[in-house]
């Protein structure tokens, strides 16, 4: 899936976040393993960390620190030289149009602004693969549009993007390929068009509901039960 946008879909509690956490080395799989960018997520976790970027569901920024302070801190964790890093931060802030607010605490930002900083936080070390967990959740239409365009742009610049979302149109619009996970297993993986024609559906939403059923997914366990882990990203 080099260089593509991979839409990773699944109902609540299907194991999406758990898989993302494992692929980004945040959780260790209880059994099995996987490779990311050719590196083993357990044995070569540190290698994996260098080539991936993470835009998690929760904003990874310190609310009391300014955008620049946040970005400089996280950038330095990747061993970037301070001067180069400063240039990079400026460039990225310009890209998401936030130079004006660079020194205000991010806690005071609107959700859209915060998410834009959160996204460039994942891009500081110019990762090969970017994991984005519901990057447009709870944003206004303008911000959603901005983020979606940004995702396309980043992909055109050569980044592989793993995207999870509950918005089917978004997945349809952005993804080159779609993977659907349910009960901890990948139940389908194809291009959006391929999925639709295979199941004879008009929209991706129909595909999704046909594959995962219409029943509500209520579960209340603290730990997501994880069985098999996926193969290669």
């Amino acid at each position, binding site marked *: 899936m080099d260089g593509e946008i991979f839409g990773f879909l699944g109902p609540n509690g299907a194991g999406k976040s758990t898989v993302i956490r494992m692929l980004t080395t945040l959780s260790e799989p209880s059994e099995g393993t996987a490779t990311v960018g050719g590196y083993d997520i357990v044995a070569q976790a540190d290698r994996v960390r260098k080539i*991936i970027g*993470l835009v998690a569901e929760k904003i990874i920024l*310190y609310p*009391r620190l300014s955008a620049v302070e946040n970005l400089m801190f996280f950038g330095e*964790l990747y061993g970037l030289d301070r001067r180069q890093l400063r240039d990079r931060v400026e460039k990225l802030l310009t890209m998401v149009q936030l130079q004006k607010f660079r020194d205000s605490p991010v806690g005071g930002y609107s959700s859209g602004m915060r998410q834009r900083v959160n996204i460039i*936080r994942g891009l500081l070390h110019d990762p090969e693969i970017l994991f984005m967990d519901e990057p447009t959740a709870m944003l206004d239409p303008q911000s959603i549009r901005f983020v979606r365009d940004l995702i396309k742009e980043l992909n055109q610049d050569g980044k592989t993007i793993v995207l999870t979302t509950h918005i089917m149109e978004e997945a349809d619009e952005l993804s080159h390929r779609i993977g659907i996970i349910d009960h901890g297993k990948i139940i389908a993986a194809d291009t959006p068009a391929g999925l639709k024609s295979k199941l004879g559906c008009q929209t991706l939403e129909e595909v999704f509901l046909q594959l995962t059923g219409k029943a509500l997914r209520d579960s209340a366990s603290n*730990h997501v039960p994880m069985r098999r882990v996926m193969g290669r990203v």
Partner: protein
Amino acid sequence: MKSQLLFQIYITLRMAHKDLLDFWKAKMLVATFTVMPIIMMTMFGSMFPQTGVANPFSGKVSSPYKNSPMAIVVEDTGSFGLQVADQFKQIASSTGLFDVLEFASFGSARERIVAGSLKGAVVIPAGFSEAFSSQRQATVLITTDDTNPQMASIIYGEASSIFKTISGRLSASFIAKMNNSVDASFISEPISVERRNLAGSTTNNFQFLAPGFMALTVVTGTLSGLAAVISREREQGTMDGLLVAPVPRSTIVVGKVLGQTVRGMIQASLILTLSILFFGVRIYGSPSLMALVMFMGVASFAGVGIILSAIASEQETAQMMMMLLQFPMMFLCGILFPIEQLPEWLQWVGKMLPLYYAADALRKVIVLGASFAQILPNLTIMFVYATITMAVAIPIFHKAMTR
């Protein structure tokens, strides 16, 4: 390899710096953090009777037991009784110890003690003068308000010391009459006692409290700070940002401990500064040794702090757990009062806790000017604690974070 190590050290420091920066930006938190030791010192310092501590604002020496209202009842009908009573009044008022009021009978004085308007009564009983005339030892009776045992014993001590002075004067004059060639004090009091302190001037309660509070603040401040920062990072999701970066987990843990330690040490130096400026505390030992003791005190608890915050899933739980740990330590580790005042089994519990050794060592350094070698046993115990708890804590932290 070497540059890798330097990078890790740099990242560790950067983690600590970030936590401190984050803390510094929370202005209300910083304010609370500053006011807290001031209030603690003032409250706890004033809780205990003190002698010779000047009021920081007026410079007046005050004691809650100065000028205490005290009754004197002279039941004796002879002249000696009245003489002794006059001397008592004179000494009491010149030293400012008691405000002496005359009462006709012990019964009426007793009523006033029960009512709370008198701290005690001195009775010169009938037959006092007669005993003197027939050259027998005479007795005075001292009664105190026993509702506050601590105060009662101080009042009793002060009143009896006045009578000791009077008694001494009398014996000197008796001896002088009997034999002019001998030093009167040699016969009346062949052995006299003078107090010589181990280091410098007299001690006061703050001299005892300040080192204890410094140790307590550094340790508990670091503990609860650690619990707060770790659980907050987990809750707000920023911990994932640290974990997903290609840095060893130990830089996160050590960085956090370091950041909180610096914070705790700042608070401790604040206590020390206040104690020196306002509460007459003097330092007789070396400041770098003090810093070492405080650092080891923190290190000995850091593991426990990490384990608790790793176990607790949210900030509130973590902080409550820390409180549970801190509160008894205040009493068990000789912070507020010497541990010897506790029952033996509780003393043992206190001696199991590293805070006891931190407070003890810090007190020895500050009050007695102890050297490194003299506090080495304490440092060794803290080091052993630190090593064991950290060895347990780091794997637990790893496990909790990758859950």
